[in-house]
């Protein structure tokens, strides 16, 4: 099982680094970043909830992926990318870029904490993981609108 979660985390990382080059299509790039964040959450969440065996390295890799995604995430929301593609970005991002950046920075901070905590074993990781997980909903509540 832990081989699998390690694999998921590593794939997420590699896909992540390839998408960074897609900056000429910021909508596709930010959606790919979020998809990887989702995949990393899946791997980390399975361990934090005890559905998969805890593996410190896999856990660390997963939350590190989330951390590197959160850093600089608002750069993928330049003016002119408000609509188009099937973006689910809410207009609130551009009317409150400061709040959006704060929300992104909070995820960066909390995922950095979780990256450290992963080394301390399942029990330390769990707390840090759930604290980090709150950021996803908090940002999606304000800054994302479902389109289909």
């Amino acid at each position: 099982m832990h081989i699998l979660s390690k694999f998921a985390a590593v794939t997420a990382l590699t896909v992540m680094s390839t998408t960074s080059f897609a900056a000429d299509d910021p909508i596709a790039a930010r959606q790919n970043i979020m998809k990887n964040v989702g995949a990393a959450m899946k791997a980390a969440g399975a361990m934090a909830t005890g559905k998969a065996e805890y593996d410190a390295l896999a856990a660390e890799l997963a939350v590190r992926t989330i951390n590197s995604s959160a850093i600089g995430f608002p750069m993928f929301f330049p003016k002119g990318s408000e609509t188009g593609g099937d973006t689910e970005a809410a207009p609130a991002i551009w009317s409150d870029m400061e709040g959006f950046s704060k929300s992104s920075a909070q995820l960066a901070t909390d995922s950095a904490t979780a990256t450290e905590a992963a080394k301390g074993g399942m029990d330390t990781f769990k707390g840090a993981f759930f604290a980090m997980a709150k950021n996803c909903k908090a940002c999606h509540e304000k800054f994302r609108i479902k389109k289909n």
Partner: protein
Amino acid sequence: MRGFLKVFLLLAMAGAAVFWYLTEPKVLDAQSLPTTPGDVEKGKYIFYASGCASCHAAPDAKGEEKLALAGGHAFKTPFGTFYAPNISPDEEDGIGGWSDVDFVNAVMRGVSPDGQHYYPAFPYMSYQRMNVQEVIDLKAYMDTLPAVKSQVPDHDLPLPFRFRRGLGAWKFLFMDNKPFKAVQGASDAVNRGAYLVTGPGHCGECHTPRNLLGGPETDWQLAGGPAPEGKGVISNITPHRDGIGDWSEADIASSLETGFTPSYDTFGGSMVAVQENMAHLSAEDRAAIAAYLKSVEPRPSRWKERKPEK
């Protein structure tokens, strides 16, 4: 000519009388209420099941702040903008001093203590299905919440909609004042879920599309549609492939608990507040909601037909 005028006047008067009769607020009287005093603990559970704070807490309130029901949240609808009132136990700005029957009629009949109709932005269409005793329990709990002062703006509505009496006609069309009716032959869990979804949980208020008059399109129950605020859509939550057909009951129950969907995406928008209330319910009740959602008729998402995927 004179004869015609007379007939016309008579008809108009009959019409007005019928209109007046039809739009007359229908209320419960105090004698018909159960006499068991409200139970604060049970009321607290109903408070989360029925999501009063999602609308009545101050906008952007988080955590404990959600217990101060100061109002002020704006709801943009095709009929104008509504502001949720203060429903804290404050005597002046809130609903302090209301009797049980005042409260029951507001929540379950959409009628104010002085006999005015409320707008259906207040989801009494769903709350009419609630158990009366539970509404009394809810009041007992809400009486223990902090009394707060606040000034809430008046609703911003175009002229024809400012006339509250006319809402009686709307209620006549769409509201039946009937209690929840169990589905014959369905399991207890499915029926418990049906009660929670159609009554206190008021899921259909967002997830069932509305017709031009703002009434629910009962043929499209829970099939989602364009969001009333004009941006985005509200998900189809029937077990159709356009909806949550590929979610298991366990997936649904767990997403209501944690906010994460099976693909580790999360709920967003107004569903976040709903989910955070559902997280306060028992695991059995979340499972019951899931069982009910999987049991309803699968329906496609109509808006996808109108706007085909590119």
